[in-house]
């Protein structure tokens, strides 16, 4: 590059390079999220139409028997669409396709020697790439999450959105934070392995392992869960995320696991078809340890914040590896 061209493109040079090198990845990201948005838009209109068709928009309280019945009917008509919450599996793919090859491809093919000798130092080269791509991923994911929140609103009203493995993973800010985290993880793994396909596979496995570990082991304890007695005959509206539950005997003491099993065995032996109803009629009550649906944003912001900090740490580690490497 001539000196004149360098002077003409002092700041926009690197963004332009980032765009030219990664436009296909960005187009793929926008294409996939855009295509899924279209699916959400079309199916969402039908779901909202059915929601109004069952009169649920005129139900201020879903625990009223009439409204609870309508909610059941609405749910049995539309529940197949809830399989779309599988979209929550996208972040590892984003990390795999956008993050994995970012450094691995340059290092594998040797083009890093060209890239790092162009007058833009490596730090700026990598920071620009990470910042721009990370921002693009976050923006696209946040917009998609907002659309998903509209799509899921009727289901949220009936079943809540805090249960793991479903809407929680696509709504709010966790989806975007996870995508950025997977992207940073992919970049670092690429810098370490220096082989594109291997880095992509390792990114998929590692980001999936981290995300499921967070869901299973960390999320239940981000905010201490609530333990309480379930009122009356169970709940008409079940919106919370139940972590553990059990029975309280007619005498008011909590049954141990063995005692509880004994009760169910006894009911099975006498051929009781509806054990829970029988138990509630005979003085038993249920206790449960749960996260209420109202904590959605509290859990989301803690989890997303942690993931963003981890992403920054991973990006710093990539930068360290790249700066240390000899051309």
């Amino acid at each position, binding site marked *: 590059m001539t000196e004149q061209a360098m002077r003409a493109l002092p700041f926009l040079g690197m963004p332009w390079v980032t765009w030219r090198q990664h436009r*296909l990845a960005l187009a*793929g990201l926008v294409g996939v999220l855009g295509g899924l948005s279209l699916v959400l838009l079309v199916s969402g209109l039908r779901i909202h139409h059915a929601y109004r*068709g*069952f*009169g649920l928009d005129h139900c201020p309280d879903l625990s009223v*028997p*009439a409204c609870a*019945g*309508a909610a059941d*009917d609405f749910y*049995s*008509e539309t529940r197949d669409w809830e399989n779309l919450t*599988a979209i929550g*599996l996208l972040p590892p*793919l984003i990390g795999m*396709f956008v993050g994995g*090859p970012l450094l691995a*491809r340059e290092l594998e*093919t040797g083009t890093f020697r060209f890239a790092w000798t162009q007058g833009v130092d490596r730090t700026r080269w990598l920071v620009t790439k990470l910042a721009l791509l990370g921002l693009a991923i976050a923006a696209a994911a946040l917009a998609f999450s907002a659309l998903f929140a509209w799509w899921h609103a009727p289901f949220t009203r009936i079943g809540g959105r805090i249960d793991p*493995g479903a809407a929680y993973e696509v709504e709010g800010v966790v989806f975007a934070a996870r995508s950025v985290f997977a992207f940073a993880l992919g970049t670092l793994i690429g810098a370490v392995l220096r082989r*594109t*396909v*291997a880095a*992509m*596979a390792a990114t*998929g*496995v590692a980001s999936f392992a981290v995300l499921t570990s967070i869901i299973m082991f960390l999320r239940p304890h981000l905010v201490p869960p609530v333990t309480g007695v379930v009122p009356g005959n169970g709940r008409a509206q079940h919106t919370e995320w139940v972590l553990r*539950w059990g029975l309280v005997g007619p005498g008011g003491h909590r049954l141990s696991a063995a005692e*509880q*099993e004994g009760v*169910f*065995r006894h*009911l*099975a*032996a006498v*051929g*009781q*078809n*509806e*054990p*829970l109803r029988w138990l509630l009629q005979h003085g038993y009550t249920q206790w449960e340890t749960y996260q209420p649906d109202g904590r959605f944003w509290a859990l989301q912001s803690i989890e997303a914040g942690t993931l963003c900090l981890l992403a920054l740490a991973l990006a710093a580690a990539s930068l360290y590896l790249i700066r240390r490497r000899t051309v």
Partner: protein
Amino acid sequence: MSAVTAARPVRGMLWVAWRQHRMMAAGVVAVLGGLALALFVHGLGMHADFVRLGLDRCGSPAGGRCQALEPFFDDQYGGALLYWPRLLLFLPMLIGMFAGAPLVARELESGTFRFAWTQGCGRLRWILVKLAAIAVVLTVAALGFSLVYAWWFEPAASFQGRLGNGTYEVSGLVFTARLVLGFALGVLLGVLIRRTIVAMAATLLGQLAISLPLALVLRPRIERPITTRLGPGHDPTGWTLHQWWVGPDGHRVGRATMSALANRLEVGGVEPYRWLAAHHYAQWETYQPDGRFWTFQLVESGCLVVLAGACAAAAVWWIVRKAT
């Protein structure tokens, strides 16, 4: 080299295939083996509890004995039984993508095909040996995994069935057939696109474009569904396709109308289901019985394998005739 290839025409190529793709093969075996081990360990506890609760001896799944203990079992293992199949059903697509797309695309992209195709071993044998050797490894690994999975799911299969949930995609033959299709499609797209990462992304989308219509459109129609009236003793292991209400005049009643009727009854203090039965309303459904599992598996995986064969043949033809 010519002496080697003349003496051992296939073994030389097999050695090359092993050296070039052992990392991939090790990765596939590690992922499937690790998951199978996790399922096995988890399954030991689940099977033990299933037997301890006596759920294996309850005869018909609709019997009262199971109905009382099922929620208890479900509370412990319901989450795992729900999430594992949902996640595992995507696995063959990813493995197929990683095994297939880079196979030729990487050689074409980096230029090493010039070296590979000028070694005295013709292109035809080069690609045929690679395709066959990798397909065999993938098939054996996937079938082994499906067997472990089927054993793991056995307790739940007795009251959930295996047709209407993710288990259909992970046990039996469909899992393996999908993996083989993903591999063959990946090789073909790699040959045509000639860029590794783009070919991988295209393979993933292509697999979804094939598997989703097969699952959503073909599967419910492989055999004519059975129409039955719902009532006591209804078999819960079937895969329900449609449910509807029939009124006293013998005509279908829409869901919204039924919902409004049930609301009126409930507001009036009447137990709706009893009232509806007394007034000759009946609920009907079409379903596929669980006994058709293997027929469905054979038909669907047959389609997938034929498609995989076509993809592989096209890839071979392109490499031998067209690629330069």
